[in-house]
Structure formats: structure tokens, C-alpha cells
């Protein structure tokens, strides 16, 4: 399979997965490019211990999380106003810049709020929730992608749901 064929067969998966993490087209495009550059550079290191799709999923998840961390680092240095809590450097209301083409207009407001809660979850819980509820992967598939057991996936998804509901109740 050539690189172009690999790209054509996986571009949708990668772009949509990146969108679920960053919720805007511009960042998702950048992540998609980084993912495929990484695939091109490290295809020789792919040892076929998993399917190539699983491998690409993992790269996409890592690149998305790295992108989010890099953005947070930039924000932390840029803002010195009363937006911060006194005892924390986190932004009080980190509403995501939603430009997600897969979200219908009538759902945008609710999903913006939901994503603001999801974005506060630990990385593993967030990943498990996205793969389960948005990507509609089975527990076995998620376990293969995240390199954990299906039981651990179930636990992560449950904790993620509880975490999101808790945050929604706190912000009321």
C-alpha cells in the first residue's frame, strides 16, 4: 500500500478523531497533518503487533493530546487577569472555540457546554469517552487502541461519565 493510499483510507478517521479532541477545524487540520507526517517518518518502525488502523489511532490520540497541552502552555503565559482563581492558574471558564462541522447549529450551545466539561477530564478518561460515545468503538477495540484491558476501558468510561455529570452539577 502506498502512502497516498494509506492517507486516503485513513484521512476521515484521523480528521474526525482530532476534531473530537479540539472541536475546531483549524486545529484538527494541523493535527491531521502532523499525524500523517509522523506515519510517513515512522512506518518502518511499525512492527505489526496491532493493525495499522489501531497504530494510526494511537498516533492521532497522542498528537491531539500534545496539541492541547501545547496550547494550554501558551495560554498560561499569556493571561494575567482576574480570570484566574486565586489559588489556581487554570482559566475559570475555558469554553472551547467550537467550530466543529459535525455539530448541528441547534445543538451547538449544549455541546459547547458539554465539551467544556469533557475537556477537564484526565486524558485517559477523555480518550475512553470519545472513543466510546462519539467514535462508537467497542470496548475490545478501545482496549486495543489504548493498550489496556476491556475492564479498564469500562471503568474509564464510567468514571468519565460520572466526572462530566459532577462538573455539570458544580457549574450550575
Amino acid at each position, binding site marked *: 500500500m502506498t502512502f497516498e493510499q494509506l492517507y486516503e483510507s485513513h484521512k476521515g478517521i484521523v480528521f474526525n478523531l482530532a476534531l473530537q479532541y479540539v472541536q475546531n477545524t483549524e486545529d484538527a487540520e494541523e493535527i491531521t497533518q502532523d499525524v500523517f507526517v509522523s506515519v510517513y517518518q515512522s512506518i518502518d518502525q511499525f512492527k505489526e503487533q496491532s493493525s495499522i488502523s489501531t497504530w494510526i489511532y494511537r498516533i492521532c490520540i497522542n498528537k491531539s493530546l500534545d496539541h492541547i497541552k501545547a496550547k494550554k502552555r501558551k495560554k498560561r503565559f499569556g493571561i494575567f487577569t482576574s480570570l484566574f482563581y486565586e489559588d489556581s492558574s487554570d482559566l475559570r471558564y475555558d469554553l472551547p472555540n467550537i467550530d466543529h462541522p459535525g455539530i448541528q447549529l441547534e445543538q451547538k450551545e*449544549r455541546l459547547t457546554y458539554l465539551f467544556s466539561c469533557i475537556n477537564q477530564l484526565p486524558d485517559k478518561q477523555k480518550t475512553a469517552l470519545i472513543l466510546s*460515545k462519539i467514535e462508537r468503538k467497542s470496548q475490545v477495540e478501545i482496549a486495543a487502541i489504548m493498550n489496556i484491558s476491556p475492564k479498564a476501558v469500562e471503568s474509564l468510561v464510567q468514571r468519565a461519565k460520572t466526572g462530566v455529570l459532577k462538573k455539570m452539577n458544580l457549574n450550575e
Partner: protein
Amino acid sequence: MNASQKICNMNNPIDLLEQIKKVDAPPFLLTRIKQKIENAQQASFSKGLSWSLMISLCMMVLLNIAVMIKYTNTTTSIQDSTLAAAMNFLPTNSLYE
């Protein structure tokens, strides 16, 4: 009613995520990816060249230092008077004898 109230009134707000639709990736991405790959390859080539030049420079400097140290050690000290006699110089500073 704000967004948080609307969503909290739902039975299971997380199910809202299932309504997100899949979209197509933009068509121009492959061109940009190929460009990035090419830029990365050029960057690694010029990085290699820079390292080679730096190592060569360091080796030259070290070689020069080694030669200077060796030359300083092998030079014998010559007494001023012997040197003056060898070059037919007067051994004193006085102009009138």
C-alpha cells in the same frame, strides 16, 4: 434557560455526543502533508551538515591547541647574552663606549 440548565434537564446529557456527525477531511491536506515531509527532510539534511561543520571546526581548534602546546614544550630557553653574541649585538644599552 442557559446551556447548562438545558443540558442538565436532559435524562442523559452524555448521549448528546452521539448526535455528532462525521465529516470529510479537507481535500488540500495531502499537499500540505507532502510539503511538511519535504521540509522535514531538508531540515534534517541541513542539521547534519551543521553538525559536521561544527565538529570539523572543533577538531581544527583542538589540533591547533595541541600543536601550540607541543611547540611550547620543545622550545629551549636561550639566554639573552648568548643570543646577543650570536647576532653581533652589544651586550649593554649604552650608546657610547
